[in-house]
Each structure stands twice: as C-alpha cells, then as structure tokens.
C-alpha cells in the first residue's frame, strides 16, 4: 500500500470499506451522513484504538473499535445506532489485513445492530502508525427518564461485574513474544448492548454502569468512588477470573483488578435487586459468569463530584479503612485497591 492523500489509493480503500459495511449512507457518498431524527436524548461517544498486535485470539483492532464504542453508548443507557470509522493506515499495511479488519468491524456492527455510516482514511509513511490506528465515534438514543449517573446510590448496593476479568489484557500480553507464554485465552471483545438491555429490562434498579476497558475493574471502581464520594469494598474470592488469567497474574505479578477488558461491564444495582439482575445477565451469552463482587459501603456524599486536588495514593499514615476502594483479600485481610497508574501493558487496546 503506498502513500497517498486523495487519488487512486484512497479510492480503493473507500471502495473496500463501502463493500464491507454496506450502508446506504456510505453509498450515498455525501460529505456527511444525514441521519433520521432520533427519539430521546442523543448519546455521543468516541474512542481511538492503537492495540498491538492488530490481530489476536478472540478479535482484532476492528472488533474492539466497534464494540468499544457500542459499549460506551450502552452503559449510559443508549440504544446504539450509528457509528463512524476513521482509519490511519501505515504505508505497507497489506490489503489483506485491511480487509480482515473491515470485515471484523462489519460483523461486530451487525451483531450489535448498528450501522457504520461515515468514515475517513489517511495513509501515512512507513514508520509511523504501526500498521493501523482506528477511531470510532458513535451515536445512540437514550430513553426519557433513564438515569445511570449514580445518583441514588446507597450503602449496601451491590457491585456486579458481567464476567471474567483480564481476558483481553492477558491474551494480548501472551502474544508479546518475548514472554514465551502459550494459553488458550481469547480476548473477550464483544458488543454488550444486548446484555445491558436485558439488565435494564429485568426491572432491577440499576444505578450506575461502566464499560471496563483500560485500567480494568480498578479504574471503573475509582471512577464510581470519585464521582460520588462513595466508598466501596470488594471481595477477592468473588472476582470471576479464568485459571489462565490467575496463573499469569501470579507469574507476572500483575493485579487482576487492573487488567484491561473489552467485553465486560460493572454495574451498581440497588440492594434487593441483585438476584434479578444476575439472572438477567447470566441468561445472556456475554453475561454467563456475572457475579456480585462487592458492595457500596458508605452512602455517597450529596456533592456530585469529589474532584479537587485529592492525592491518588493513601495519605501518609492513613488507615486502609479510610481508603475509598478496598478489597477483602482471599486471606481475610484487607488492602486498598489503587488507581491503576502508568502502563504496564502499553498498546493494550
């Protein structure tokens, strides 16, 4: 693939994309997709994907690009509808790889029930762009009255994850050749709007949801704690995880809580509605291993955002009990769950 902006090469890429996505909006070939009006509030999200390697067991950059955007819409209660696709390709990327990625995006979009309606491609010189970068943005519609912002969270509310943690991170990590590991792990990349719909339709009072990606469950819990000034406690014995992920956690010294996922959500459900929520989630193919992993401990402050110059680490001399996010360990002890920091696994998603 050669370098080019406009011209025969870009036309060829656009032709391939149109064939893969079969959208009348793309076929209309306007500068913008002009979409029908939507009911309810419009949810809008975007994300960029830089994962290396591009292809891995369970998925590829295309699949996570579509699923990630679909999931970000789903967890705010939106029905995902339209997605954009921005590609930055490195000169030298094979057409075969490109076609595989686009086919993967099309399949993920079909599964999620969304349409890829607009896009862009650029080709950069070799040595920049590491093969391929993808950006997706997505639009969805949020029904009136649905509030997943976390207001209304109370002490005792259940913290639920939709399935096993760390599958994506450890799958990609295993492929970083120098480690020499082999396992049957697969990325969990999946569109979760169906799962979320099942959960919301179950009648369980869902207060809050997050898509768990980079930074893992630890990041999701800290977002919740920050947003609401809540304190949370989770139970290590309750965390769902495959044996391979646990083994790699031990071998590599990486905390399962900080491992990236591409097909998992965390939800806070009102105390009393847990069983209903679990039943709905476990009835869905992407929620079979859903589990309660902990509880909201302290009623959140009424201030909507904790913000400010709070130090990320425990304060000097601070009791673990004072930490916002804690975990009861498999030994029966207690430890803090730190904000994930730095990047042990760069280019993970």
């Amino acid at each position: 693939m050669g370098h080019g902006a406009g011209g025969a090469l870009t036309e060829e890429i656009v032709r391939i994309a149109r064939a893969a996505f079969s959208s009348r909006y793309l076929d209309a070939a306007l500068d913008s997709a002009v979409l029908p009006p939507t009911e309810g509030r419009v949810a809008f999200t975007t994300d960029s994907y830089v994962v290396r390697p591009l292809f891995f067991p369970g998925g590829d950059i295309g699949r996570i690009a579509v699923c990630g955007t679909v999931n970000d819409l789903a967890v705010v209660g939106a029905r995902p509808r339209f997605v954009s696709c921005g590609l930055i390709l490195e000169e030298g990327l094979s057409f075969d790889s490109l076609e595989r990625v686009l086919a993967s995006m099309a399949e993920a979009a079909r599964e999620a029930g969304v349409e890829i309606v607009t896009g862009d491609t650029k080709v950069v010189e070799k040595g920049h762009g590491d093969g391929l970068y993808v950006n997706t943005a997505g639009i969805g519609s949020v029904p009136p009255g649905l509030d997943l912002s976390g207001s209304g969270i109370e002490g005792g509310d259940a913290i639920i994850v939709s399935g096993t943690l760390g599958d994506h991170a450890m799958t990609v990590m295993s492929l970083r050749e120098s480690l020499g590991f082999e396992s049957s792990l697969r990325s969990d990349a999946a569109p979760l709007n169906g799962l979320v719909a099942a959960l919301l339709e179950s009648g369980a009072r869902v207060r809050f949801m997050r898509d768990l990606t980079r930074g893992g469950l630890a990041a999701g819990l800290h977002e919740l704690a920050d947003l609401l000034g809540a304190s949370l406690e989770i139970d290590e014995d309750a965390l769902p995880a495959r044996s391979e992920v646990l083994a790699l956690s031990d071998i590599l010294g990486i905390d399962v809580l900080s491992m990236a996922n591409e097909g998992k959500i965390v939800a806070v459900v009102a105390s009393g509605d847990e069983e209903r929520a679990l039943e709905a989630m476990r009835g869905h193919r992407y929620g079979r291993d859903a589990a309660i992993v902990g509880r909201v401990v302290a009623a959140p402050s009424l201030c909507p955002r904790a913000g400010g110059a709070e130090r990320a680490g425990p304060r000097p001399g601070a009791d673990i009990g004072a930490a916002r996010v804690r975990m009861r360990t498999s030994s029966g002890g207690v430890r803090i769950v730190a904000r994930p920091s730095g990047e042990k696994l760069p280019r993970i998603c």
Partner: protein
Amino acid sequence: MCVAAPMRLVSVEGEVGQAELGGVTRKVSLALLPDAAIGDYVLVHAGFAIGKVDEEEARLTLEAIDAISDKREASGGTDDGPGA
C-alpha cells in the same frame, strides 16, 4: 526479583522444558536443574527453573500446621515448635 511461581513440567528436551500453571504454558531453561523430570513441580524465575517443589514435603508441612492448630484448639495449651 524473587518472583517465582510454582509450575509443573510437562515436557523436557535436554536443557529446555515446558512448564504449566493453570492452563498457561511457557518455555523454561533447566540449566539450573539438570535432573528435573516431567511431572516435577518447579519454581520458575526469569525463564529458569531454579528449584523443585517437593510435594511430599509440602504435604508434611500442611499436616504439621493442621496438627499444631488442632492440638491447640483441643487442649488450649502451648504449642510445640513448628517443625523442621
């Protein structure tokens, strides 16, 4: 860097073996454990097997802990030493 996980040797070819834990396998050097055999549990550090885990000794250790604690619970008295 003391991190070393116990893994089971599933294959041995000269000075190199494959070790397994929880479904994950990896290549390990046996340069430091020339007499390691398939089925042995070894501690793996930085890609090398550094020592064997003696399963029988592990069992005896666990029994010793069990015995101390049981004895304590039964008699409410003082413990013996923890054992070798």
